[in-house]
């Protein structure tokens, strides 16, 4: 679903992201891990052509579209519909005076999903909301009437309703409480398993990543310093920076299992 080769993103001549290779297949989860300024978010945004001021070179293919050379029209076909972007605080992106149900119906219409019929959209919406374990009642609420965890799950429901095949998520749970984070992670895992969604996750939380990702890329100052299967990278890190990150993970006594 995602194929990246020799991606280089520069701002004003300065190299901020240099990714030689990044592949995410259907049903897979790949995580980009790094600290502030590592280039992890820039990499994610460049997959949808959302870095307009940058000089970009390389090859980026997402859902069969060559992103770096695609026409704006071709990009619009994948943005939002086939590829969903989930950010740290979805509440900020939701129009405050619009009920969530209205917002979702508009998005479906805009992307031509549900043949424009009210009945068709209602079914799709109900199914999407159920897939993220939200009460259908949420559709009658305004954005300020839902919690952060509910807003994040609504963002995922929106992606499902629009028929997303790929989810790009930038720190989707770092603004949430741990118990709520556990719920959102549970939903992400189900969507992968049941719908074969490809998931690219950007996170600074190595422990979280270790519980969900198949493969990991570790980035520092724009460069990928290490990559490989999550289990291998986290158990036998080869780069000193990966080791430093792992040592900084604080443990909590009393493992749950």
């Amino acid at each position, binding site marked *: 679903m995602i194929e990246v080769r020799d991606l280089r993103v520069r701002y004003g001549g300065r190299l901020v992201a240099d990714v030689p290779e990044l592949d995410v297949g259907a049903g897979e989860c790949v995580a980009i891990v790094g600290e502030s300024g590592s280039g992890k978010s820039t990499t994610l945004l460049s997959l949808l052509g959302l870095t307009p001021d940058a000089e970009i070179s390389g090859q980026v293919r997402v859902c069969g579209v060559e992103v770096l050379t695609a026409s704006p029209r071709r990009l619009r076909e994948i943005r939002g519909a086939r590829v969903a972007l989930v950010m740290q605080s979805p509440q900020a992106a939701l129009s405050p005076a619009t009920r969530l149900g209205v917002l979702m119906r508009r998005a479906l219409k805009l992307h031509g999903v549900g043949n424009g019929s009210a009945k068709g959209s209602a079914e799709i919406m109900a199914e999407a909301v159920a897939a993220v374990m939200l009460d259908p009642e949420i559709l009658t609420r305004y954005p300020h009437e839902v919690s952060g965890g509910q807003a994040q799950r609504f963002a995922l429901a929106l992606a499902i309703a629009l028929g997303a095949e790929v989810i790009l998520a930038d720190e989707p749970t770092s603004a949430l409480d741990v118990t709520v984070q556990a719920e959102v992670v549970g939903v992400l895992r189900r969507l992968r398993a049941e719908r074969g969604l490809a998931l690219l996750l950007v996170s600074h939380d190595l422990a979280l990543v270790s519980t969900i990702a198949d493969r990991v890329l570790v980035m520092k100052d724009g460069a990928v310093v290490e990559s490989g299967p999550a289990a291998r990278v986290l158990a036998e890190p080869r780069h000193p920076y990966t080791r430093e990150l792992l040592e900084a993970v604080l443990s909590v006594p009393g493992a*749950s299992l």
Partner: protein
Amino acid sequence: MILRAERVTLGYGRRPVVHEVTLDITEGGVGLIGESGSGKTTLARAFLGLLTPMSGNIWYGDQTLKKADLRKFRKDVQPVFQAEALDPRMRIGTSIAEALPRGSRPGAKQRVAELLEQVGLDPGLAARRPHQLSGGQRQRVVIARALAVDPRLLILDEPTSALDVTVQARILDLLASLDAERLLITHNLAVVERLCRTSHVLFAGRVVESGPTRDLLANPAHPYTRALRDAVPRLGGPPPEATGRAEAVPAGTGCPFRLRCPLAVPECERAPEPRDVESRQVACHRAEDVLAGASGGPVT
């Protein structure tokens, strides 16, 4: 013991958000653990004298805060906020010098340099402004500023949550090395484990479990403490578990946690009083079952 909350109820307007909390700030670091809306920051504000209790008292030594000498109190008890609290226009050195006690102007420059060194910064940074420093350096400046009056107690509200993990680890080392006592407010269990000998877990404005941090995390006696602990992802561990419905509203009467609790029984409609169980105090009718590892369903 520097500060003590005695049956303190706190709120904004007429609505209480913290209910009849009693706890001591003891030696070795005290942690207030809770999630958004648990009342932990409200309680910290009361300990700083920034919020007057609706009922109950905050004791400072043998006096209530209402009657205490506030000048002495402000020197003894210092807040450490997140680094965004620094004045962006002010040089670092000026910012710290401003916090020095009155009458110490003559040696101020020397004292600022000492404070910067104490928090592991180059004294040369005194001439810089906040935006010229990294996030970790700014957090160190905030700590240096709090240390300027040589306080006995630091009240820290999420001191590392905005920092990268490698930076966080170094700030925690610094905090652990200081002489001042600590009250730490956080949602991060691992940070509490590093810095606090004793911890109190808050849920919906009530202390549900108190005791030695190690015991609380290794073998929780309250179902909420256990839910919190099991929701923390572990390196190479299983996916974090969502026990019960994380977002269920706290129950109005009875045990506030019962609507989310996998162990709830009819008895839980009666509010549990805090009681001593093994090494801790816990407000749960089924504490013994939780300690024994019961995972769900009512007892038969």
